[in-house]
């Protein structure tokens, strides 16, 4: 069953005379237990989509079902089961970290004792224990972000929305965040995560949707996305006098999509690198070619992103 099922979501913002089409008909389906990454440049509509799916914002058009319930800005049934860590956080600066998380727990219906227990557990998990009783005003950016995450997970939601959770986190904290998300996932939580970090989408998500100008341009598994783009690239270092012979040989192979010469290298584009390599080696052997080097390059998500949006995420 799908935990998110959205059809034709549209949202327009008017500020003064200018009109912004933030979402122009989003269709999205997320399977229960999945982790989906929303990848898109600034202003693509990621936050707007999340705010609609978390019942905070009313779409102009379209329908969506979250955890089996139709979205509606009045729906407590959805709110009980989802968690949301917004892009800007939402910790109260004048309250301590512990007070912030406790309040969130209590409003989600945990009893005082349950809340206390769960909150200390989370504070330890996010390594906030030593600063938990300081007011949030005094936190560093990354400490604050970790607190936001703790607040979003305190009630063990069935579906968790994370809007750029890793911004401002050092590599160690990011790794811990990933661990936390994975362990939630193992426990059956579905996760929607927006990110600008390709490695994050790659490492964490089983589906990635690329969103630009308020539309989902493509949606697939990270590996699938990379495959549909161009396939993998295998470079063979071959003696110059054997280059032509090799070229003829590989041109006739079914698994080779494209072939070209680069200096002393033969560049093959193949469907799937890991199955192509043994075949290539076999052929080289059978025909007595002298192979000097062999490399396999897979397209990165950045290449995919560039391909679909015409922009590189690294410049974004």
């Amino acid at each position: 069953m799908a935990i998110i099922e959205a059809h034709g979501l549209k949202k327009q913002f008017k500020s003064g005379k200018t009109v912004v089409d933030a979402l122009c008909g989003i269709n999205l389906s997320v399977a229960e237990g999945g982790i989906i990454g929303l990848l898109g440049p600034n202003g693509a509509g990621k936050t707007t989509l999340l705010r609609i799916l978390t019942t905070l914002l009313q779409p102009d058009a379209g329908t969506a079902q979250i955890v089996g319930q139709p979205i509606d800005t009045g729906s407590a049934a959805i709110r009980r089961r989802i968690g949301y860590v917004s892009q800007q956080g939402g910790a109260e600066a004048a309250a301590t970290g512990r007070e912030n998380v406790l309040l969130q727990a209590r409003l989600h219906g945990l009893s005082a004792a349950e809340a206390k227990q769960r909150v200390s557990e989370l504070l330890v998990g996010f390594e906030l224990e030593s600063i938990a009783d300081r007011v949030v005003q005094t936190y560093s950016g990354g400490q604050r972000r970790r607190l936001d995450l703790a607040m979003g997970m305190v009630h063990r939601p069935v579906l968790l929305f994370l809007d750029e959770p890793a911004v401002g986190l050092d590599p160690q904290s990011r790794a811990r965040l990933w661990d936390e998300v994975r362990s939630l996932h193992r426990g059956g939580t579905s996760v929607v995560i927006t990110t600008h970090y390709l490695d994050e989408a790659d490492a964490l998500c089983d589906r990635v949707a690329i969103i630009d100008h308020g539309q989902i341009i493509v949606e697939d598994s990270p590996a699938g996305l990379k495959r549909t783009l161009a396939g993998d690239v295998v470079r063979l270092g071959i003696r110059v006098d054997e280059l032509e012979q090799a070229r003829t040989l590989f041109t006739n192979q079914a698994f080779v999509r494209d072939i070209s010469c680069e200096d002393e290298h033969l560049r093959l584009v193949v469907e799937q690198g890991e199955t192509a390599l043994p075949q290539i080696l076999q052929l080289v052997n059978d025909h007595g070619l002298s192979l000097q080097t062999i490399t396999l390059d897979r397209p990165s998500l950045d290449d995919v992103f560039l391909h679909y949006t015409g922009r590189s995420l690294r410049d974004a």
Partner: protein
Amino acid sequence: MKVLRETMIIGLHSLRVALRNPLTIIVGLLQPITWMLLFAPLLKNLPTTTSFSATTAINIFTPGMLVMLAPITSLFSGIGLVTELRGGVLDRLRVTPASRLAIILGKAGRDLVVLLLQGLILVLIAWMMGLQIYPLGILVAFVLLLIVGLLMVSCSYAFALTLRDENAVASISNVLLLPLLLLSGLILPLELAPGWMKTLAALNPLAYTVAAMRALFVGEFNDVAIIQGFAVTAGLALLALFWATRSFRRSFA
């Protein structure tokens, strides 16, 4: 039941946070206290053509200052709410299943407790300046203070949620407040006013609040102004609360 529980949770949390900073209470008190110290003494020597007499001057002046606390405190609350809106704090509360009414009521509850503490300090100062105490009157006056506080805080929240800008909230409050206060007989009783001003004041809800408060402070418990004051203030407070909750529900669509 659920609304009550959530209101308590939010209220107690907000109160604990607010009281951590004693400035919360003191800042709002500064203006009324200044009036008490630097203006009230003038009243003693007022000609006896008015209802002022040396003994009751402070009893007539204090209730006005008490009412004045309400808009001052609520102004800060409205500005604070805009800050929370910007920082995503409200979104984070809204994404919980907590009732929207409870969120507003809980925050307003904190402001009312602060108001209550400020009122107590003010009355204490007045007492040291010679206020004659009518215990029953003061008790009921504090109930009225809470009601007018709810009215002001709710209005301030509604402004905050509609305008979403600290400066705009501050400006509109200031523009509205001065005439509202001057036309309420808060500093001097309206019996000194010319006819046209009295007519205008009759349209000002705060005038009824002040009149009731004053009757309570001078021990005239049979005065019909008390009932009128309660009715007008409480009626409007409920409307304002409805308005604020509605703005809270809608302001994000």
